[in-house]
């Protein structure tokens, strides 16, 4: 019965995802891109891919920063298409996931205000979000033009982000640092995403947790480790700056990291499959944390690819597809910046997540 309902609800979604799947860059295309002689070569190759349409901009304007901005339009289209064709509950989860970029845009706008940047300087650092947004481009512009952080927060009145930031404003005023605002934004957003997932039916919830749950776990674990390694925060602070919920990473793991316990124990308990590749790591240096992040994201990408095996009539398929796209866009951006800076392939290729996954 449940399967039958799933087929009915997700028939259009899975057909759309299947049709879009071929747009992902193939291994051969990645190899060509990595081998491209320079930035122009990358643009020429990308113009023959699904990103070609978004790069239809006068070449003189297509700086690496602009190119990175343009290719993000593709992700916006992917999200818009899948949100449109998904059943209503899945739609709210996809939209909540999509709002991750809205959070990033708010963060960029706040940093722009703090740095006294102009709107033109900020615009192309934003994620293009033409649809399914709570904070419009006009509001972001108003935030930047407001000239003060409290004014910028005020612009967000009526959105879910206002109360999150408003509660943190006192600390901003005292410390003159965006850190408390950004942490409040991150925590609040992820709580909402978690709640959206919990609002799904049983089967969808379990499937969604396999991807979104892992995304939240990775963030939570890395936050805890970074707060300890880089910021030297106290146990109580780390706990307050992390999420109380998780899928594979438990609150006990976070508390273990927070009180300065054996971080490796927490990491390998949650992800035993990393025990071999990261053997001996203590996760107490920036380099080790970088490696851990790479390994976790590769694990997530592999899990997303596995979603395409077996029954496709569930929320896991669109979620896996948008995540694969997100990491592909991240990799293309990295490639563009590396080629523009004439970085040798040996230096940046190992950092790409999607080609080797």
């Amino acid at each position, binding site marked *: 019965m449940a399967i039958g309902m799933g087929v009915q609800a997700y028939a259009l979604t899975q057909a759309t995802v299947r049709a879009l799947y071929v747009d992902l860059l193939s291994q051969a295309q990645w190899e060509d891109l990595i081998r491209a002689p320079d930035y122009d070569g990358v643009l020429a190759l990308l113009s023959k891919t699904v990103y070609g349409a978004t790069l239809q901009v006068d070449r003189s304007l297509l700086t690496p920063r602009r190119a990175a901005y343009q290719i993000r339009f593709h992700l916006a289209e992917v999200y818009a298409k899948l949100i449109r064709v998904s059943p209503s509950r899945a739609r709210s989860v996809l939209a909540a996931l999509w709002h991750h970029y809205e959070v990033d845009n708010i963060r960029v706008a706040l940093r722009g205000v703090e740095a006294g940047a102009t709107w033109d300087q900020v615009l192309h650092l934003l994620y293009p979000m033409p649809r399914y947004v709570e904070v419009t481009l006009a509001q972001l512009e108003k935030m930047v033009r407001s000239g003060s952080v409290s004014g910028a927060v005020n612009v967000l009145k009526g959105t879910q982000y206002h*109360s999150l930031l408003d*509660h*943190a404003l*006192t*600390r901003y005023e005292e410390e003159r640092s965006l850190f*408390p605002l950004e942490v*409040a934004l991150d925590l*609040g957003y992820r*709580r909402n995403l978690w709640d959206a997932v919990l609002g799904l039916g049983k089967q969808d919830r379990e499937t969604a947790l396999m991807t979104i749950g892992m995304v939240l776990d990775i963030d939570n674990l890395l936050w805890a480790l970074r707060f300890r390694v880089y910021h030297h*925060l*106290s*146990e*109580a*602070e780390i*706990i*307050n*700056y992390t999420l*109380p919920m998780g899928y594979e990473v438990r*609150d006990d793991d976070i*508390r273990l990291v*927070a*009180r300065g316990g054996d971080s490796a124990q927490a990491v390998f308990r949650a992800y035993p499959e990393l025990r071999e590749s990261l053997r001996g790591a203590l996760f107490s240096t920036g380099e080790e944390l970088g490696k851990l992040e790479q390994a976790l994201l590769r694990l997530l990408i592999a899990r997303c690819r596995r979603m395409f095996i077996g029954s496709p009539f569930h929320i896991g398929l669109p979620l896996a597809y948008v995540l694969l796209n997100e990491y592909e866009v991240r990799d293309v951006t990295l490639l563009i910046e590396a080629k523009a800076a004439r970085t040798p392939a040996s230096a940046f290729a190992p950092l790409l997540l999607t080609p080797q996954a």
Partner: protein
Amino acid sequence: MFRSQSMIRVELVVPEHDIVAVTESLAESGTFEVDARNPGESSVSQANAWDQQATVYAALAQRISSVMELLAVDAGSPPAEALRWIDPDTVARDVDTIEREVKGPVQELQDARRKLESLSRTRSQVVPLYGLGVDLQRLRNTTYLYVILGSMPVDNVARLQASLEHIPSTLVRFGERDGLATVILFGMKRDAEILMRAARSAYLTVAELPDEYQGTPAEVLEALEEGITRAREHILSLEETLHHLHATRIRRLRHLHWRVQASLTLAQTIAGFRKFRYSYLLSGWVPEPGVERLRRSVVAVSPETTIEVAQPTVQERAVAPFQFSNPPLTRGFQQLVTIYGYPNYEELDPTLLLTLTFPLIFGVMFGDVGHGLLLVALGALLLSRRVRALRSMAGFGTVIVACGVVATLFGCLYGSLFGFEDVIDALWLRPLEQTTDILLASVIFGVGVLTLGMGFNVVGAALRRRWGDVLLDRNGLVGILFYWSLVGLGAGVLNAELPMPVGALAAVAFVTAIVIWLSERLKPLVEGHGFKRADLGMGLVEGFFELFETVLSLMSNTLSYVRMGAFAVAHGALSLVVFILAEMVDPGKSIGYWIVVALGNLVVIGFEGMIVGIQTLRLEYYEFFSKFFTAGGRPFRPLSLAKVEGR
């Protein structure tokens, strides 16, 4: 009426010292569209000081708009007199003065509001502690205990408790308001730093009690109430000051706003002109009747300016703007055309045809005397602009009136009044009873409209002297012949009386089909360019599929008009449903019956009227326009210094 206002290409060579006056004069005339395309080679780089001027004006505009926002002044309508360039230094001095006047009270007001907010927040933090008979100040000054009183997001309370698991402490939660909980955190003095860091990381905002607010929560609350009253009074007096400033500065601000906006547009426009050593070259489009007036006004401000006027070349005509020349009554229909697209400069304007066919198609589908008259009344209301909320739709008033009039006429023909079929006699037929007749009549009407569209295409092609299209296009003369022969064959199948034998019709259809098949090859021959031989094989295959598509589209376009009859039937049927419902509600036909009938009629008018409107638009756009209208043009946009946001 069917063509664009004739456009003339105008080029002006303006001495540098007159460029502002000439540009102002061009804008004032309202008849000059700047041609943004490169007008030719020049000896001097285009980069000039006007770009910098534009930047200066943009910054001034931003400052003015900020002050206007602070004083809640809107831009108002553009002034009646012609807008002129204004010296930026004069503006800067004025803006400096107004900013000085405004910013002080505004800053003070913001501070006062912040203070009020802070007092209110403190009050809401203290309210839950009202019954506590303890001096809050003393609570803070204990020897061994460390106490934090404040509020924090409800979502963070449990996390804070968890984070202090290993620290001797107690978190007491009192009340909750707007997602914030009032809490008191008790701990040991020696753990003060840990407790404070934990509290801050959980976004606990410590209640700051100024010195004057001492005592028990009840006493503090009383003092807070007094403080809040004082803060409110202060805010009121500052608001009055700002209100006074608003009243005295509004005219000046609006004046500056429009003049600076005009100067900004002027600077941006001049920056786009081709610059020579001592002169500028301007080129653009002017509607023919306005050329002389433009010449006179330019010469009046700059006698040294040279003006060259020329009819556009063939290439230029392809990019010339289109300006409608329709009577005012057709403006609503013109808007419907522009929603589809603007005619190309050389193309025929379909507005008048739409004005005739749109109400007709609508009326056939929505024939009812009562509903039609209500639509007339609604259209008249829109035209009168009496209802503020409907003013933006005033342009469609004529469309609705025309649709209402024709719907009323068809109501007489169908004998229908507010759905009652037995009050007036049908002058023609009753759609519900003579369904086949109305459907057949719709198809015949469709054949007529489509033929009209194809005929319009023939006339348009003839005016452009494209004789190949006139004769051989699938929407040209051969196309019309082909279509009518198909219509004749269709009528023959239905045993209709035909003016010629079926065999002859089939022969005409066959021959014209062959011509359409080969039309892309034959058109150059007709136009004197010889037979097109290149890619003959592929061309023939493509031609065959185009012929196939032509047959399919002619059939589907024609059958699309069946919906006219179908909606006429549906209109009657819906009214019938209303009466059935009314009788179910009140079989005695008293007040309940009439309420249902009235509500039902409103639903029919609103709901079905909208659907019929959409269907009419569909028939016009997809069936009718596709026969002759490419909509590849662009509107004539004269230079204006009074740019209104959102227009």
